[in-house]
């Protein structure tokens, strides 16, 4: 592992291979009575240069896998375009689609599930060649043995079954299968996250070697931030279907601009005990992608959320309590009421949500609460007790919501190299993210 520290910089030619424009992928939601769609990928723009490794990070549910699957047409995009070498692949169908498929392949996360256990390794790797009628039968067999040695397996493994291999070896088989048709572009969907750490390094090295040998372009999806830093030239951070920050890997890791990126990076454990990095712990859980916030996707958990002018002088602790109350009420509004509760609500005898009083008491007990805040909170609590958490939520948003709650931010360019971040804080009129966050971690 000589290049563990010194990251290999692939000579990216600067030419765009994949250009993603306003890509959306929604699930469900079509049909009159259907619930609102799940917005797995929500208007995403980026480019992947030929020969580079583009990283995609984010917590589970952020839509990174869906994005990767859409790029290889395992999912049909709801809207937007993906142009591959100038062709919009979301429009392809039939034989054109099949022909294009040999250009873009995928390596899957779970080596246990990505190989059919009832086929021999040879058959598995040969299948793409068979499906595309590649040359003659004996040439295909030769190609398979060639691929086996490319990925570090032996020729006599041809007649073994996947059962007989370890996780790392199985992933090598999956890589060989992806390479079979000599693709230009490979989506690596968390290719090492199911493997032991020692094996991870070997697979990463193999991927790097193969990239060099065959001029491959990678989309590397991961949640392991250090692996991404090691292998990727550029990286995009996703949250709830949206790219929060995108730019050159080193720069982004050294000087993150977006509050989400900063929180994410602060969670990387450092081997050096003398370095004290204030870890930013995000409150709550990500909201449901079926019902994302109206403004910035990250606004419900953002530590650097912009406060409306009117409440600028409210103490920080009190303001935090208000935000927590809003989170509680948002959770409440997701609960559906039973038939008896619906009936009670009609009769004005609804009492299931009366425990909100205790929550409010816990939250605000020892804090100084300005009268204006107090009144609004009380009004919202009454609405909740009446069984209308949805209205309480809207009320609180209208009263306490700042620009983050109401308006989607733009992607702002935040560095000379073209790095972009999705946050209102980059507008000149607001305080800078880093300044706000350092204040936040000092206070904590």
């Amino acid at each position, binding site marked *: 592992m000589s290049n563990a520290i010194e990251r290999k910089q692939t000579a990216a030619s600067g030419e765009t291979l994949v250009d993603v424009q306003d890509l959306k992928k929604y699930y469900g939601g079509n049909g009159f009575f259907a619930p609102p769609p799940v917005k797995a990928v929500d208007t995403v723009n980026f480019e992947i240069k030929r020969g580079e490794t583009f990283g995609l990070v984010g917590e589970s549910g952020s839509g990174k896998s869906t994005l990767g699957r859409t790029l290889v047409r395992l999912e049909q995009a709801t809207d937007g375009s993906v142009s591959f070498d100038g062709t919009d692949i979301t429009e392809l169908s039939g034989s054109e689609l099949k022909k294009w498929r040999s250009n873009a392949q995928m390596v899957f*996360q779970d080596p246990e599930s990505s190989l059919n256990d009832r086929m*021999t390794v040879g058959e598995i790797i040969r299948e793409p060649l068979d499906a595309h009628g590649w040359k003659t039968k004996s040439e295909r067999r030769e190609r398979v043995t060639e691929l086996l040695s490319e990925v570090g397996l032996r020729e006599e493994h041809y007649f073994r079954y996947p059962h*007989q291999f370890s996780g790392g070896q199985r992933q090598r088989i999956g890589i060989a299968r992806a390479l079979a048709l000599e693709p230009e572009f490979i989506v690596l969907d968390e290719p090492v996250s199911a493997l032991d750490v020692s094996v991870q390094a070997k697979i990463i090295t193999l991927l790097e070697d193969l990239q060099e040998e065959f001029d491959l372009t990678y989309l590397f999806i991961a949640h392991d931030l250090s692996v991404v830093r090691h292998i990727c030239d550029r990286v995009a951070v996703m949250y709830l279907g949206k790219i929060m920050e995108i730019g050159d890997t080193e720069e982004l890791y050294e000087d993150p601009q977006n509050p989400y990126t900063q929180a994410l990076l602060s969670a990387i454990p450092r081997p050096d005990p003398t370095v004290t990095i204030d870890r930013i712990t995000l409150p709550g859980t990500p909201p449901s992608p079926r019902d994302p916030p109206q403004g910035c996707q990250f606004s419900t958990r953002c530590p650097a959320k912009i406060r409306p002018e009117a409440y600028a002088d409210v103490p920080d602790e009190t303001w935090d309590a208000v935000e927590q109350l809003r989170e509680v009420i948002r959770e409440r509004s997701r609960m559906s009421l039973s038939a008896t509760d619906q009936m009670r609500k009609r009769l004005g005898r609804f009492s299931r949500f009366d425990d909100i009083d205790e929550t409010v008491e816990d939250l605000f007990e020892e804090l100084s609460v300005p009268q204006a805040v107090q009144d609004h909170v009380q009004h919202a609590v009454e609405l909740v007790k009446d069984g209308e958490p949805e209205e309480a939520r809207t009320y609180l948003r209208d009263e306490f919501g700042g620009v983050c709650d109401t308006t989607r931010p733009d992607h702002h360019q935040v560095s000379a190299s073209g790095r972009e971040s999705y946050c209102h804080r980059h507008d000149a009129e607001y305080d800078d993210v880093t300044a706000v966050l350092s204040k936040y971690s000092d206070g904590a």
Partner: protein
Amino acid sequence: MSDTNTPNDSYDGDQSSLTSRLAANPRPALRWAAVAAVLLVLEFGAFIGGTLTVLHALVLGVTGLIAAMLGLTISKGIETSINEVQASILSQIDSVRSTAEGIPTLLSRETIPNQGHRLGPDGPWAETFMGLEPRLAWLLRVTLIVVYAFVVAYWLFRGWDIFRIYYRQADWTPTDDIINRLRSHRWGVFGVLIILLFLTMALFGPALGPTTVEANIQSPYGHYVEYYSNETGQVENVTVGNANFNSKSKGAGTNVGPMSYDSFDRFHPFGTLTNGRDLFTFMMGGARTTITVVGIAIGMSAGIAAALGMISAFYSGTVDLGVLTVADGITSVPQLLLLIMVSAVFAGHWITNVLNGGFLLAILFGLTGWPGLWRAVRGPALQVAQEEWVDAAESFGQRPALIMWKHMFPYVVGYLLVYASMSAGGIIIAMSALSFLGNGLGVTAPTPAWGRAIDLGQNYVSTPSWHISLIPGLMIVALVTGANALGDGLRDAIDPETESGSGEQTAAGGGA
């Protein structure tokens, strides 16, 4: 296993074909083939005859269906011309079959005859095998046939074993594990043995019975038996029909029970029916009809269920809902009622002649039986469709039909076998129920059908003629149990984690 790469020069590539591997080491294959050839020659006529009987029925059924469909949609002329073609093919098959059955086989009734007569009141037996008592001659033949059948079955299995040891390129496959587990599963092996026994009955039925269906049941007045008459004191000649008339089992007084002789020197292993016919011969004839009908029906419904199960799992959504609606529609029609109705509608139609009405039954069971199997298969199919290897196949542009065949079917076929073998029991019971009800339902009389024997004997259950209902009943129980045991064994072999069933898994099969 290590994750390293050491080149291996001894590897000769996978270019070799099976023939070249056989040529490289022919000894085990030749040894196996020699024994197989001897086994085949012993019963060559019977094998060809059996195969041709099935072929005959298939040609008749399939061409008949095509003719009827074209006749309805296009013109009567086509129907007639197809019927002519059909007739000529059938007559050819018939002539080949009669030649084939003319080939002497070692274990036939001609080589080891059991039908003979005494020469005196206690006297020695004539015309039987080596002058043995008919009972012993018959027992000898039956034992030999059963042993032969099991040896053949073992030798076929051994053939697979030899292939896997000497000629297969992979030294291990997942199937090996399944077979090994099935071999050590006692209940499953019991099922296999029972099913083998019944297959033997179906295949060698004509040679197993003390007499034949043709002579004893179909045209008894065209055949004669010789016997020693106690009254006249000499060997007399009588038609089988007359002999049957005087050997009825109708309770006390007139009864020919199991393992006994009637007054015409004929041996009846299971006794006689109420009309004096031989029950054992009747049961062997019934086994052939039953197993053919069940085979066709299960094959049909399993095929439909597998195809639709994978289609609904792969495409899901609207397609799945469509199949579900059709399946529910079919399930909502009471099967037995439908069978009765359709039998009534088709009464007198040519299709009721194919397999003596069995073909129509088989098609009906096939068309109405698949929803149950589809349900059983759909779940596992949905699970497999979620696997990443299906996505992988899609991502390199594999055709949907091939994805279903290569990446889903191997995982579904096990469940299909399990549930098919279990619902086979249901079909057997339903068929017997139809024959039991009688009135032109089920397999046409006088062609043997198990249910009819039970029906005939139901008035004599508490008399000395109890055997008429009891023995067929027990045989049905044995076959259904065997089919279920086989299903259990297969399930545990395929999916060892569900072993020693928690009960819920075994819920299949069932009656009509």
